[in-house]
């Protein structure tokens, strides 16, 4: 029997998901014996041409990390979709848009002006901007077209499975990989390598009374290591976020930022957290409520830190 063919690819993301594959540790070597890795630009010498040469559905599973932020990302997504029996959105960027999709709070022209003109060290008197096509004496130089709106993988192609996490934690990665290598697979569309319950379920902190009397920013206090951060006024996305990571950020005494994405039945992770947080405001009068609401520093950027592209509204109005 032939080894299953596996591909990894990396679109708009930091590459942490690629590194997360190394978290397989020694297992990566047995993996190499169990499967044929047919495409992995960050680690192996294969070019797009090699990928294009492959037959349709020639790859058994492709793990795609990164959001779709430019025409190259989208082209590759389509290419891998066509070449793969199963396509997996691997990591928060491919699944939810991730932190790159915070770019959806801005737009291309603003980002462009900021990057190539406004930034303090930029010297660009002629206001030159990168071009998709540039004609040099020797020939034409092309670069991919940047998109105004960052998209999740499943907003451009059909996705079979999702693996959340920024990045997915090691144990989960090996669990997921083994699910594909001769393991049992849930129905198409499932989220793998994560819990069906919120982070609170695995969080070791003590919960007593959910009440927000004051919003406390992480730099303003040294939180009690034992007590629920939310109950200490620190906004923690844990209640609205899938578990599975092992609540490692909380163990470092830092709040959850939501990288594992929404719960199975949740309509919108950010809206759910907004609702939960504000519902427990310890305020009844118009003024007190307004004061507490105003003291949340950055609702959008906090509730959609990792999932703006995946959210109901996806981006800000432009």
């Amino acid at each position, binding site marked *: 029997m032939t080894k299953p063919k596996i591909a990894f690819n990396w679109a708009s993301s930091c590459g942490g998901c690629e590194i997360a594959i190394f978290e397989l540790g020694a297992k990566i070597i047995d993996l190499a014996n169990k499967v044929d890795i047919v495409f992995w630009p960050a680690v192996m010498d294969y070019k797009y041409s090699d990928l294009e040469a492959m037959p349709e559905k020639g790859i058994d599973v492709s793990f795609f990390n990164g959001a779709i932020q430019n*025409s190259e990302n989208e082209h590759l997504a389509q290419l891998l979709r066509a070449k793969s029996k199963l396509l997996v959105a691997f990591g928060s960027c491919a699944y939810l848009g991730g932190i790159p999709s915070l770019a959806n*709070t801005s737009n291309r022209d603003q980002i462009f002006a900021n990057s190539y003109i406004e930034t303090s060290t930029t010297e660009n008197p002629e206001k030159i901007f990168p071009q998709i096509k540039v004609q040099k004496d020797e020939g034409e130089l092309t670069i991919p*077209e940047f*998109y*105004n*709106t960052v*998209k999740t993988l499943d907003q451009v192609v059909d996705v079979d499975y999702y693996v959340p996490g920024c990045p997915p934690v090691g144990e989960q990665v090996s669990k997921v990989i083994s699910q594909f290598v001769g393991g049992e697979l849930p129905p198409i569309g499932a989220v793998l390598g994560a819990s069906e319950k919120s982070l609170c379920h695995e969080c070791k902190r003590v919960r007593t009374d959910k009440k927000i009397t004051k919003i406390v920013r992480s730099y303003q206090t040294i939180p009690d290591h034992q007590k629920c951060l939310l109950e200490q006024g620190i906004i923690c996305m844990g209640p609205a976020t899938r578990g599975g990571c092992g609540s490692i950020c909380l163990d470092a005494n830092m709040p959850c930022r939501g990288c594992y994405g929404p719960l199975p039945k*949740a*309509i*919108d992770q*950010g*809206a*759910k957290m*907004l*609702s939960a*947080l*504000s*519902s427990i*405001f310890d*305020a*009844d009068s*118009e003024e007190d*409520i*307004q004061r*507490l*609401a*105003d003291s*949340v520093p*950055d*609702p*959008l*950027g906090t*509730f959609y830190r990792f999932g703006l592209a995946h*959210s*109901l*509204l*996806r*981006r*800000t*109005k*432009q």
Partner: protein
Amino acid sequence: MEKTFEPKIVGFLCKWCSYAGADLAGTSRMKYPPNLNAMRVNCSGRIDPSFVLRALASGADGVLIAGCHPGDCHYTNGNVKTLRRFRLLQRMLDQFGIERERVRLEWISASEGERYARVVRGMTEEIRSLGPLNWKTTMEVAA
């Protein structure tokens, strides 16, 4: 000639007050524009901000949440929780660039049919002058 823009407004009405207020407007044969379609909920406290976002994302030009006046909630203080959520939601909608006129929270009692009619009239006019929200297009503009 091109027809005037007719806003689509989704209304979430508490069955104890605002929905009854809307009924009263009907029994009193008050007239208001047909742009708002109401949904009858047990309490404004049932309204999850997700519903508001979903309505806007799916093509609504505005959303009205209407509940009992403070102190009059049939369930003691469900409306207070609604207010808490709404104030924070407003701040987030500001960040999304959605005008405040489009998403409103109003206290309308069962006896305030006239007020209900006024609110619907007012919202319809304000949103008509704002123009369509067209969020679907906003999201689709990729390149």
